[in-house]
């Protein structure tokens, strides 16, 4: 019995604690006065169809909230994307209206979508966003993977400190972290001053308001999202597999490519999705670091809404962005579900 309990590893890891707690539970079960006949009944009450009323109520509260505040809004965006801009409150034409109280008039305007296809700015912004987000995701992976790997291979106490250090910036203001780079990257900023002081360059390099600045901003802001899922898979990795590969004569690099990398695929996919999807629609980073020349779709939509006050076009841009992202989002969710089920089967 005592071999099951390992207080040193019990904390953060999942495995040993259930075994230990189960024995405690068994003990209380054994000590308790006649619980046996109740056992079944209570299970039926909690899990069975009889308990469904209370259960249904519990499910209904968050369900309704999400339906109302998360799902319905998309229907409304879709609806307004078919309206036309008009001066007034709200600033769009009604889709459905009564004419002379006798018949219903439904007007669908495709002008918002027509803009999207005709004006090359939108197409360029979409393609640009995808390209920038993909590049930044790869950069994030290249930096995040060795970091996650290094953390997973540290001793447990250092590991916790390092993890805390990874998560900490995530808890500080996103806006401020982006802002910090303005002071570093601008023409008379800290980096240019330092480089000129060292005599490496003679005149400042234009870094702010370039795509390079956007890459830095995205990698910097989303790095924790890449490291954490990678760390979770790498930490679970069975070290003996690597040892076996090496014992059989595999070079370290080859062992990494053939064993570690394939086994950490779930973490790679999750991390890349967590970085790629939100950065496609990123607004703050391209606005503050990218300047006027770089077009990203989140910024285009923001300007459409706040500067042009054109709600229908902004909605059409949003719907198009959603269509673009729906495949990766659904794919990501599927993948998460499969991984969860695998993990559940693995632990049983």
């Amino acid at each position, binding site marked *: *019995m005592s071999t099951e309990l390992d*207080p040193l590893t*019990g*904390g953060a890891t999942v495995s040993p604690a259930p075994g*230990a*707690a*189960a*024995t*405690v*539970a068994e*003990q*209380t079960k054994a000590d*308790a006065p006649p619980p046996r006949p*109740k056992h079944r009944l209570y*299970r039926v009450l909690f899990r069975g169809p009889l308990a469904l009323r209370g*259960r249904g109520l*519990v*499910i209904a*509260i*968050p369900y309704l909230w*999400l339906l109302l*505040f*998360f*799902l319905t*809004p998309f229907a*409304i965006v879709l609806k*307004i994307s078919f309206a036309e801009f008009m001066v007034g409150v*709200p600033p769009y034409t009604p889709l459905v209206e009564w004419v002379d109280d006798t018949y219903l008039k439904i007007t669908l305007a495709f002008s918002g979508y027509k803009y999207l296809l005709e004006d090359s700015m939108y197409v360029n912004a979409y393609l640009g966003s995808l390209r920038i987000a993909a590049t930044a995701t790869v950069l994030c992976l290249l*930096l*995040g993977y060795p970091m996650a790997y*290094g953390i997973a*291979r540290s001793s447990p106490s250092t590991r916790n400190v*390092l993890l*805390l250090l*990874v*998560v*900490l910036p995530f*808890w*500080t203001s996103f*806006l*401020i972290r982006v*802002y*910090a780079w303005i*002071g*570093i990257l601008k023409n008379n900023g800290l980096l240019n001053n330092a480089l000129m002081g060292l005599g490496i360059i003679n005149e400042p390099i234009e870094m702010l308001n370039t795509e390079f600045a956007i890459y830095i901003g995205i990698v910097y802001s989303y*790095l924790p999202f890449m490291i954490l899922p990678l760390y979770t898979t790498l930490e679970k990795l069975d070290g003996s597999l690597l040892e076996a590969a090496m014992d059989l004569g595999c070079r370290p690099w080859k062992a990494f490519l053939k064993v570690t990398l394939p086994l950490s695929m779930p973490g790679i996919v999750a991390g890349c999705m*967590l970085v790629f*999807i*939100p950065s*496609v*629609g*990123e*607004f703050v980073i391209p*606005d503050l670091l990218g300047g006027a020349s770089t077009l990203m779709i*989140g910024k285009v939509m923001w300007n459409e809404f706040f500067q042009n006050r054109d*709600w229908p076009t902004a*909605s059409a841009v*949003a719907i198009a962005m959603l269509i673009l992202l729906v495949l990766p*989002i659904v794919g990501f*969710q599927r993948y998460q579900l499969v991984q969860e089920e695998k993990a559940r089967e693995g632990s049983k």
Partner: protein
Amino acid sequence: MSKRSPFLISCMAFGFAFLYVPLLLLMIYSFNDSKLVTVWGGFSTRWYGELFQDDQILGAARTSLVIAAMSATLSTILGTICGLVLARFGRFRGRTLFSGMITAPLVMPEVITGLSILLLFVALEQLIGWPEGRGMTTITIAHVTFTMAYVTIIIQSRLGQMDESIEEAAMDLGARPLKVFFLITLPIIAPALLSGWLLSFTLSLDDLVIASFTAGPSSTTLPMVVFSSVRLGVTPKINALATLLVSAAAFCIVIAAIIMRRAERERERAIAKAMAEQEQM
């Protein structure tokens, strides 16, 4: 196991430097006397003094804190229910949609979430007259909707690690489901509740995009003020504000981490003690 090659060590050093040097520079330059943010003009705390006399920033900070506290509380309650439903309720009709609606806000670009929920508020106002205009209520509702997902993930994974047999034992002993939840489950997942609350508080305090869409003329939040002044250029006053925010966050996280580790250790000790007692019998 703890073997790390020089390559790994240098990657980690670079990575952590990349994460922390910008923040450190920001903090150092908040004590810069010069108005030119990138030229060192001697040590001074004058920007902190000016910060605390800026009524616009102080007012916005108050608004943001109230919204963050309200939305964090509500989203912890709703997120805990969601986590419980996903971890304990097994299959039910509409579960796929439910879990989809929970994970989607995690990756949904903020501009889409912001625009869509604003259009909902506008439509609702036309339809039933609520919410009347936009302000703190609408920002809070929007924040609850997107932070709830984070709380759900935290609670769900904590419940997944927790041993169900303790709950089953309590039910076998005659406790009703609701009682089991409040007496057994809730105390065990309390640290997760705390981190869920803190996370949604921070996310709400930090959010610019969704708040900009759902804010009314009278409800300017702190990120909105920071954003509009940052757009005009780097100012030492914002550096001072940033330093305060970053240190407050760092302080809270370190404290929370220590508290949670201690609770975890205590729990382990209790389990070990129970095991030892059982062996003696």
